[in-house]
């Protein structure tokens, strides 16, 4: 079997195993084993990929295989990866793995993990497919479990949030569907394969319609202003691991899709209409950061921070040059990891203090030093400290974006740069309020620090963040090389 299909098969096998397992212990064993296999697979894939590339395999996608499953519409289960998908698969594998540890003590664990695995199927399937329709299918598979996971295992106004999230994302899907069908017909309805469509030419007058539809469809998932409001509510209500997976991976589906489908297939329209979205993403970046400054709920702060950071991803993608796009992909990785770390820690803190209101906490550094130090590291990564992943990603984006010589792009780039200051404000405000200072609530004294399973999840994420931060040239090379064909198409 193709190694890529294993990414989908393993979670499916996990689902079956979960059906059979009864006790908590068995469930955990299944989940840990499965998630470890996924991480292992991702590692093997990366190594093989690099070996193949080093051996001179210069096809755009490697490990390609295809099985037609609905011939009349040319829908096939086609898989294949380039460096970008490999990076995304690694990210997803890490986050799925750490998410398991972050949801160690769930009630109704069996059902929870069932949906969790289904979500993973969708996520992995999305990143490996290069068939438009299959991609869309997996995208939907990833969305549905989200509703149940938030609605059943969430906190606060969970039904409302779950409904809002699902409906808004489904609204996005509707646009996406239009876009995908449009692309299929406008390119002469001969194939659904991304690579083949890229060789065909979609007439500009069609692109003008389908580019915005596709971009908007994926953009909603990437928290594009003004369609981002599902994110704060959704994240605030979701259980820890779901927030992690959602902000860490699912929001990346949006950025990845914008880039892989919208821009790659319709570059002319992207050039022509990109400025509209560029303004929107520019607003996202600054607006999200400013909103985060005055929030008082930890998860809201992080959700708005995600709006800002994911805005930067879309922003860089729309800059449409190699450097900025490399930066965008790196920002996806970086944001995925650090936001997952944030949510893992917020879940940890919330699980002990039973509040997420930063005004009601203080001096946690004394009470749970491990968790607090990790929180500070996450914060520093988020505000772009060199040596952690945020810095390399943001700098690549800024340098790349600044290569456009006209005033419009310049001004937007500088505006986006301003976000690094605002980020510092809200991160330090949060850290100062909840971790430092005197202990605010004496009930918090004596709360236990992180348990071993929480430590596993947090430490893995920190290592990954530091790895990208200190070894960016490796990561950036893989991504940048994979962008060559895309850039070649953009400059037609």
């Amino acid at each position: 079997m193709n190694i890529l299909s294993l990414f989908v098969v393993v979670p499916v096998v996990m689902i079956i195993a979960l059906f059979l397992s009864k006790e908590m212990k068995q469930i955990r064993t299944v989940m840990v084993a499965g998630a470890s296999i996924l991480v292992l697979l991702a590692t093997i894939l990366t190594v093989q990929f690099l070996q193949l590339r080093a051996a001179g395999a210069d096809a755009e996608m490697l490990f390609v295989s295809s099985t037609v499953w609905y011939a009349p519409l040319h829908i096939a289960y086609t898989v294949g990866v380039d460096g970008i998908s490999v990076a995304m698969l690694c990210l997803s594998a890490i986050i799925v793995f750490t998410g398991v540890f972050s949801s160690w003590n769930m009630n109704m664990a069996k059902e929870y993990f069932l949906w969790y695995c289904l979500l993973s199927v969708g996520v992995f399937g999305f990143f490996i497919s290069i068939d438009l329709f299959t991609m869309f299918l997996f995208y939907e598979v990833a969305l549905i479990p989200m509703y149940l996971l938030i609605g059943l295992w969430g906190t606060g106004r969970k039904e409302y949030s779950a409904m809002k999230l699902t409906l808004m994302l489904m609204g996005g899907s509707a646009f996406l569907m239009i876009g995908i069908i449009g692309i299929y017909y406008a390119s002469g309805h001969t194939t659904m394969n991304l690579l083949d469509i890229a060789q065909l030419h979609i007439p500009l007058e069609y692109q003008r319609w389908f580019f915005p539809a596709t971009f908007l469809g994926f953009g909603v998932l990437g928290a594009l202003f003004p369609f981002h409001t599902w994110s704060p509510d959704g994240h605030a209500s979701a259980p820890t691991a779901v927030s992690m997976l959602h902000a860490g991976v699912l929001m990346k589906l949006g950025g990845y899709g914008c880039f892989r489908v919208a821009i790659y297939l319709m570059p002319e329209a992207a050039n022509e209409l990109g400025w509209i979205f560029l303004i929107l993403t520019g607003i996202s970046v600054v607006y999200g950061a400013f909103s985060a400054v005055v929030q008082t709920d930890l998860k809201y702060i992080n959700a708005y921070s995600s709006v800002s950071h994911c805005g930067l991803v879309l922003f860089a993608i729309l800059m449409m040059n190699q450097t900025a796009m490399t930066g965008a992909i790196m920002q996806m990785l970086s944001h995925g990891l650090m936001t997952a770390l944030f949510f893992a820690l917020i879940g940890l803190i919330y699980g002990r203090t039973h509040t997420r209101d930063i005004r009601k906490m203080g001096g946690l550094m004394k009470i749970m030093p491990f968790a607090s130090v990790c929180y500070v590291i996450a914060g520093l990564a988020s505000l772009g400290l060199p040596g952690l992943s945020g810095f390399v990603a943001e700098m690549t984006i800024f340098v790349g974006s600044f290569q456009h010589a006209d005033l419009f792009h310049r001004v937007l780039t500088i505006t986006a740069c301003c976000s690094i200051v605002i980020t510092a404000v809200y991160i330090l405000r949060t850290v100062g309020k909840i971790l430092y200072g005197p202990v605010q609530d004496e009930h918090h004294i004596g709360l236990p620090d992180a348990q071993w399973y929480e430590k596993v999840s947090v430490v893995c994420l920190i290592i990954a963040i530091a790895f990208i931060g200190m070894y960016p040239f490796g990561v950036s090379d893989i991504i940048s090389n994979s962008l060559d064909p895309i850039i070649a198409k953009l400059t037609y």
Partner: protein
Amino acid sequence: MAYSLLIIVTPFILFLVLGLLGMKMKPVIAGIIGTLGMAFCAILAYTVAYQYFFGIGKTNGEWLTQIPLNFEWLRFTENLHIDLGILLDPISVMMLVVITTVSLMVHIYSLGYMKGETGFQRYFAFLSLFSFSMLGLVIATNIFQMYIFWELVGVSSYSLIGFYYTKPSAVAASKKAFIVTRFADLGFLIGILILSYYTKTFDFGLLTADHAGLVTTSMAGGTFMGLSIATWAMALIFMGGAGKSAMFPLHIWLPDAMEGPTPVSALIHAATMVVAGVYLVARLFPVYSFAAPDVLEMIAFIGAFTALFAAVIAITQTDIKRVLAFSTISQIAYMLAALGVSGYGDHEGLGYMASMFHLFTHAFFKALLFLGAGSVIHAVHSNEMDHMGNLHKYMKITSWTFFIACLAIAGIWPFSGFFSKDEILAAAFHHNPIVFWTLWIVAGLTAFYMFRLYFRIFWNGKREYNEHHKPHESPWAMALPLIILAVFSVFSGLIPFADFISSDNIPFHTHIDWTVAGMSIAVAVIGIGIAFALYFKDSKQPAKIAQSLGIFYKAALHKFYLDEIWMWVTKTVIFRYICEPIKWFDRHIIDGSMDGLAWTTQKVSTSIKGLQSGQVQFYAWVFVAGSILIAVLVLFI
């Protein structure tokens, strides 16, 4: 000279070891490991310095730049890539020596000063992190590497200011320091972006080569809002430097940063990190000098103004660390003013040399002053002058070393400060009279407030102390660094600096200009004399003078209300008028419209729900009526 890599790798390893394993160690062990590691670095730095100046020496009468190591770390485009490497030239070698020396002294001192504090290991870990970042900053081969370490020093400074993290004021101060410098760094970053876009390189060597020919040619003719692109780029880069070096109006973070432990103030906020801005300008000096002379002039005026401004505030402060903080601001401004009035090459570049010279000597005597202040605070457990006095009797070593440092900063011959300050004044004298006279007044003010501080701590009446809390001399771990630094403060001025450091790296000869020197000594002596008259004995005179100055005194005491203004900008303008409305907008307009959409859908569906009653009879009725209607329509139309 690839072993120079060890100079920065060692502190980094120390940081990892102390940071990860420190909690498992005994505090003393952690402290000793840190100190020994730093001592190793210092030895290496001296070896490098020796080898650079005396081993390799000059080539054709010029100190050449050595790059023992440089590798590509992150590639942006074909030409733009961040490299990490080591650049050795006279100023970076000089900085290596300064940083490792002061850092080592502070490490030793901290063994005594921080003894018994919780988080002793953490403290040493952060000191190592800071040393690592600062050393990385000075040996940067390109502007982006500098930016990387620039951010890292910011974070280490943040962590150390907020070392007493349970104290709200320390947390606020650390936050303020980080955010203010971050704001300045934004300018730095944008400046780098502009500069690199035109020149297609980050590399210092390429930027400064040939009288910054690359910059001038690539940016030729470009203007934006009436100023040339080069001016914009360099001014923005300077903004970063001004933030770190606490230039007006970005200086507000430095006085608050004194919330950190005193040795930290000595290392970071007096000797090393805060001169990063000066170092940055010096590093890019040819670019400033040839491509953006207007920025350089601006730097001269900002420097002169800040020097005066901070000196005036320093006179009124009563917290001894704050006096020193403002004194630091003033002295760094001195260095920047010197750079501002400097030309390029030979004697024209006197200001450049003087600035570096002052940076060098200032590092020692200011570190000494801070450590001395720390020793005093250690003894009386207070920062306030009012709680001190007559300490000379109890703390002889501290008192004498403090006295030496005061003489050095006041610029009395033959202490180190005299030589460097004299060169600065001489440079200003020949280039810019306004700057010169300002700096001259500042020299007098400096002498005055330093001796005010000295007399009020160590003399000022016959104050008696509580029997149980009698002040005592500090332990040897603290006294030893004081003595060593005092030696440096006395003699470091005798180094023939112009032989080693000059704007074009070609040695030139300097001689003491006795007109200028005489004027500066005169003004310093006057300052000391007034301080002696007012503060040697406990008297009511100073209070009366303060009374008579009225509003002016009050304004200076409140640091000219700049903190309040900044507070207003952040709290009121940004929080209340930007963030809160955005939050409201988000919740009510954006989210409201989404919810509104859902609400409308729901309303519409409820209102047409009645049609689907489930009553078959009703359906049948509608069906029949519909059929008849259609039949009628078909038949008659």
